[in-house]
């Protein structure tokens, strides 16, 4: 078990390093001359070379990368040219907002998804199952800007129950932010719900066909007890993995949803940085998002191993 975790940790570090290389090179090397971009095409050659020296761009690429990664690890994330402030406080402010949205969405779709998935599996091949399966299929991959805009049309513009935009000011607390979070969270939940439903359904259907469920039934144990002690313990394992991996997406991947609602989360920050071509901001935000994803994957792996004795004791 310890070996397992150490191996996973090693792999995680490797992934982050490789990802940071991709991000660094995509943002620093590919776009061409950064100095010209910052100073404009008509800047003098001296000014440009002076800026390059300032930014360390005259050094070899490897050294630049090392400096950048070292600074990132130390917490020196640089200054954003487009916002003229330090990057780290902004990113963390947005991370807080993203977390709030993630929590609300999580509470909305995880329990409901598991419940619907279970019902579909237990009522396999009936109209209930068909409805749930086809319904969830319809929402999988439905772009959030489509579902989000339709939700706004209905609940914000027509019924006026919720605000149509969620551009909360910095420092808003969770309770005050809650009304602004409902519609974005529903939008996210609609997409994610389907994954949880489908995973729960398919693994439960599989487990229900296992011999040990027959054994349990033929022990004369009541169906409800069979479900809770024998079926769920095994059938929810893959769901746990899907949900844990989903957390990464909830925090760092809601670029479209945040953009539809104007919600100031990490995703929107990244989009803003890209639109302004603010490389410093892009690098830090992107690497943070990758970090969140990788940690979510790690949690998923460890949870799976902890809950599964076949891995725990091998």
């Amino acid at each position, binding site marked *: 078990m310890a070996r397992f975790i150490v191996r996973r940790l090693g792999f995680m570090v490797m992934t982050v390093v490789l990802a940071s290389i991709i991000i660094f090179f995509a943002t620093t090397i590919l776009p061409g001359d950064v100095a010209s971009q910052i100073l404009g095409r008509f800047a003098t050659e001296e000014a440009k070379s002076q800026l390059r020296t300032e930014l360390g761009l005259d050094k070899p690429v490897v050294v630049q990368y090392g400096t950048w990664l070292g600074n990132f690890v130390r917490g020196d994330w640089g200054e954003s040219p487009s916002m003229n402030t330090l990057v780290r406080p902004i990113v963390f402010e947005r991370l807080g907002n993203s977390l709030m949205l993630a929590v609300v969405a999580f509470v909305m779709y995880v329990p409901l998804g598991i419940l619907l998935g279970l019902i579909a599996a237990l009522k396999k091949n009936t109209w209930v199952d068909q409805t749930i399966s086809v319904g969830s299929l319809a929402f999988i991959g439905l772009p959030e800007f489509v579902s989000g805009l339709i939700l706004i049309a209905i609940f914000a513009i027509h019924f006026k129950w919720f605000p149509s935009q969620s551009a909360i000011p910095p420092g808003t607390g969770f309770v005050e932010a809650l009304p602004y979070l409902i519609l974005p969270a529903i939008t996210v939940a609609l997409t994610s719900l389907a994954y949880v439903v489908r995973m729960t359904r398919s693994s439960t259907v599989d487990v229900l066909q296992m*011999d*040990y469920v027959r054994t349990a039934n*033929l022990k*004369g144990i*009541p169906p409800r007890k069979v479900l809770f002690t024998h079926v769920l313990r095994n059938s929810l394992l893959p769901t746990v993995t899907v949900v844990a991996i989903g957390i990464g997406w909830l925090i760092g991947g809601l670029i479209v949803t945040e953009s539809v609602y104007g919600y100031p989360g990490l995703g929107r920050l990244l989009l803003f940085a890209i639109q302004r071509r603010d490389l410093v901001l892009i690098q830090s935000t992107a690497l943070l998002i990758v970090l969140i994803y990788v940690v979510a994957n790690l949690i998923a792996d460890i949870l799976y191993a902890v809950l599964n004795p*076949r891995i725990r*004791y091998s």
Partner: protein
Amino acid sequence: MTVPAASRPVFEVEGLSVDYVTELGDLHAVRNVSLAIHQHESFGLVGESGSGKSTLAMGAIRYLASNGRVADGSVRLNGVELLGLSPKELRALWGAKIGVVYQSPLSALNPSIPIGRQLAEVARQHLGMDSAAARGRVQEMLTKVAMPDPDAVMKRYPHQLSGGMLQRCVIAMALMTNPALLIMDEPTTALDVTTQAVVLDLVAELKREFDSAILYITHDLGVITKICDRVGVMYAGEFMEQAQLKELFKRPLHPYTLDLLGCVPHFDPTPQKRSLVTIPGSIPRVDQLPAGCIFAPRCSFVEAACTKARPPLAAVDKGHLSACRRWQAVPPPAEYLRAATEAVRGVQTACDTSDVLVRTSDVQVHFKAPKGTVRAVDGVDLDVCEGQTLGVVGESGSGKTTVARAIIGLTPRTGGSITLKGESLPRTTGRRPRSTLRQIQMVFQNPDASLNPTRSVGDAIMRPLTLLGGLDRRRAKDRALELLQSVSLPVSYFDRLPHELSGGEKQRVAIARAFAAEPGIILCDEPISSLDVSVQGSLMNLLMKLQVEQKTSYLFISHDLSAVQHLSDVIAVVYLGHVMEVGDATKVLTPPFHPYTEALLSAVPLADPDVKQKPIRLAGSVPSAMNVPSGCRFHPRCPRNLGDVCREQEPPWREGDGDHRIFCHIPLDELERLQAETLVLEAEEGA
């Protein structure tokens, strides 16, 4: 009814019919079957796949898939009618009055719950115990099934125990409440033969100790003789015959039973190789049953009247029921066997060095694993001579398959040498020239995987003809059609895809494909073990026939000692990557034996209740090939362990008559003296 309670059957099934509802309408999977089992009695339900034996058992206790239903009949347990009980009432019986043991113990137990808790569930549900009392009861039960260290086992998860141990746990669970009925559905099929013997002994013992009536389902006629008092033979959803065990084997009164007994190789080390009885055709589909007797189209005693009306299962003798209207015409087995089989060839043991086709010398196959080295094959010396069959027998983990894979080059050997006609063979297929590749062919174990699902039968056979035989497509096609006929398949199969074939037919195609290259030797890796007994018999006949025609050598690998002795001229017994004993088939099967061979012979279930086998049982299970024991690798389990010598020193090869060699510290004459009664085959005439 004034039958005294004691002699009334505990479990009675009368006129039971079970249907499955499918797109094609209702399928009558089991039709009008009856049986009765008394207390302490065990009833063996035998039949090939598709005979409906599991459907009968599960239908009787009302546990069917949602598309299955009991259409008719009556099932009584201790006089209580089961049909008509509500689900709740049934659940009060399941686990309490009815215990079930399953084929695969590993999948029958929940992988994520400790074993102790799974067993305790039964005690808590049906015996009203709290968790502490239930734990005590589980401990007691585990002790009764001879489980070493029950406390530790209770904390384990299923994947941490061996198959034999797990099956004991499942048996303990099923007997927890001392149920009136114990259903055992192929409980030892997934186990190794020595483990199977231990479990069968245990069941026989528990049968006396507990009050249950046992319904024992199996396809294995040999296992039946170890455990059952009474036997019912099923065919396509109906009983063909029911009788007391000895009666059924001595004097079967239904042609199907007679044929089944003839399909199984008999254990007689004679120098003549005879064919086995075959049953033409295959089991009819349940929706396409013939009008009269359902066995009539395949029966060798059929007459016109048989195809008119279906004969009922009726008493023909005291306690002997047969569904044959011509039961009086059914001859005794020995007589039938002589008439229905023929001598195919003599045993071929004489072999000079010049006749040796394939020779392995000190072959080793070691794999690197994360926690050490797996010594799958650890110094194997074998010779296969031209036209000869070398049988390699061993349990799972013995490395017998790996030896074959090393010979053919699929798994590169890590040491030793392999020669073909005196020339050293490169380690992998990639380095062998076509002329060499052509000489060695293989028939694999799993018929479903040995043919490419997207390629037609004809393609599969033609490819070696064009690639290795150098034929053009037209000539290859002609030859492929010939080969199809030689393996007794219709030429219309040429265009079929594998999924349209049965398991036995796929294996015939695989055999045709192997012969297409006109090889010197064919490595047969358990080619028949996944098939029904009647199909096994016909495949063994086919292999023997082709061998005589083509003068091919076989390396026949199997865990089934009966099949190996039937086909082989020379037998090698392997254990944990090493040969324990090798020699002419007759020599290996008569004393002196290696103690491991002795244990195998004692454990193999023979389909003949008259054979006396001395119970020699091995402790524990085969060690991991990562920790091969020191000295003699068999010493930790050896019943004839001499102590320090065996533990510390590698045994010598002791040479017997001819090429008979035994890898043991005990001298041959002493072994012979000790082993006189291991296996006593009674003369057939004594029957």
